C-alpha cells in the first residue's frame, strides 16, 4: 500500500534537486557583482519607504475564514461521492441536507457582506 507513495517522495526530491543543481551549475557561469543600489527592493526607482511586510488589506482574512469553512466541508463529499451508488437514495437525502446547510452558510456570509470587496 505505502509503496505506491515511493514515487511521490522520489518526485518531490527530484523536483527540488533539479532546481538546486541547475542553480549550482549556473553559479559557474554567471557574474556576481552586487552593490547596495542593485540589492535594494524595487520601488519604481525611488528609495523604498518603510518595510513591505506589514501592510495588507484586512479583507483577505475574511475570505480566508470563509474558505476554511467551505474547504473542510467539501472534503466530506469525496467519500460520499465514491460510495453513493451502493448506498442509494438514503445517502443522497442525507448529503442533500448537508449541502443545504453548506449553502445556508454561503447565503449568510453573502448577506453579512463578507463576500463584498471594499
Amino acid at each position, binding site marked *: 500500500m505505502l*509503496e*505506491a507513495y*515511493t*514515487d*511521490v*517522495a522520489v*518526485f*518531490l526530491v*527530484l*523536483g*527540488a534537486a*533539479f*532546481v538546486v543543481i*541547475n*542553480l549550482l551549475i*549556473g553559479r559557474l*557561469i*554567471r*557574474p556576481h*557583482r552586487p552593490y547596495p543600489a*542593485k*540589492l*535594494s*527592493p*524595487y*520601488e*519604481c526607482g525611488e528609495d*523604498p519607504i518603510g*518595510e*513591505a*511586510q506589514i501592510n*495588507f*488589506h484586512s*479583507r*483577505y482574512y475574511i*475570505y*480566508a475564514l470563509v*474558505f476554511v469553512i*467551505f*474547504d473542510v466541508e*467539501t*472534503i466530506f*463529499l*469525496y467519500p460520499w*461521492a*465514491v460510495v*453513493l*451508488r451502493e448506498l*442509494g*437514495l438514503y445517502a*443522497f437525502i442525507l448529503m*442533500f441536507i448537508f*449541502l443545504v446547510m*453548506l*449553502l445556508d452558510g*454561503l447565503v449568510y456570509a*453573502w448577506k453579512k457582506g463578507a*463576500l*463584498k*470587496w471594499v
Partner: protein
Amino acid sequence: MQQFISDQIMALGLPQWTFNVVWALIQGLLVLVFILFNALFLIWLERKVSGHIQLRVGPMRTGFHGALQTLADALKLLGKEDIIPSSADRAVFVIAPIIAFASAMLVYVVIPWSPNLIVQDLNIGLIYIAAVSSLLTLALLSAGWSSNNKWSLLGAMRSASQLISYEVSLVLSIVSVALLAGTLSLNGIVQAQQEWGLWFVVLQPIGVFVFLTATLAELNRAPFDMPEAESELVAGYSTEYSGMRWAYFMLAEYSALLAAGALNAVLFWGGWSGPFLPPAVWMLIKVYGFVFLAMWIRWSFPRIRVDHLMNLGWKVLLPLAVVQLLITAIIVVVWG
C-alpha cells in the same frame, strides 16, 4: 525494462524497496525531460499564438520560425546574475522556486497518458491532485512575502485570495466527476467513461464550464492574472526574482498549464480513449486542445477587476457547481 532492473537488484542482494526507488527515479527523470520539452514548446507556442492573434508574427529569427527561441532564452537566463535583495528573507526567498517547481512536478505522478503509461495510479488520485496543485500558491505566497517588496506582497496576497476563492468550486466540480465514476483514481475515471459509453462532458455541461474557469484562475492566467498584473504590480510576486530563479516560476507555470490540460482531458473528455489513433496520441491531442483554448482566452479577454473576480468565484461559480453536484447525484441515484 522493469524486469531487467528488478533482476539486477535481486542479483546484488538489495532489498525490494531499492528497486522501487530506482524505478521511481527512472520514471521521474523521464517525466522531467517530458516536462522540459513541453515547456520549451509551450512557451514558443504561446508567443506564436499571441503574435498571430495580435497580427504579428512572433519570434522568427532563432531556428525555423523561432523554434529555438525558448532554448536561447533559457541559456541566456542561466548566465544572468542572481540577485537576492539585501532586505529579503533569504531562506524563504531561496526555497520558494523550489516549492513551485517540485509541486508542479508532483501532479504528474497520477496523470494517465495511456492505459499503462502512468507513473502510479493512486487510489486517491483526485484528492492528491487537489492537495498538490494548491501548493503552488504556497510558493507564490512565500515568494511575495520574502521579497520585502510592496508589489510582490500585493501580488502574493491576490494570488492566495484568488486561489482560495476558486478552490471550492474546483473541488465541487471534481466531486461531480467522482460521483459519476464511483472512484477517485484517474485511470478509473477514464475507464468509467468507457463503461458509461459517453464522455462526462455530456453529463456535466455546467461542470466543464466551472472547472475550466476555476483552473484558469488557479493557473493565474489572464483574464485572471491579477497576481502579476503587469500594468499595476510591475511583475507581482516575481518582481524581485531574476535569472534562473525567475525561470523556475515560469517553468512551474507552464508545467501546471500542461497538467491542467491533462486533468481537463481526463475528467471530462475521455482521457486517452478515442478511435483509430494510439491512446497516448489522443491524450496529447486533447491536452494541447485545452492548452490552445487557454492561450486563445488569455489573448482575447481583458483582465477582470479584483472585486469582479471574487464575485465570479463566490457568487456565480460556487452556486453553479453545487447545482451541478445535485443534478449529478440525482443522475447517479436514478440510473447508477
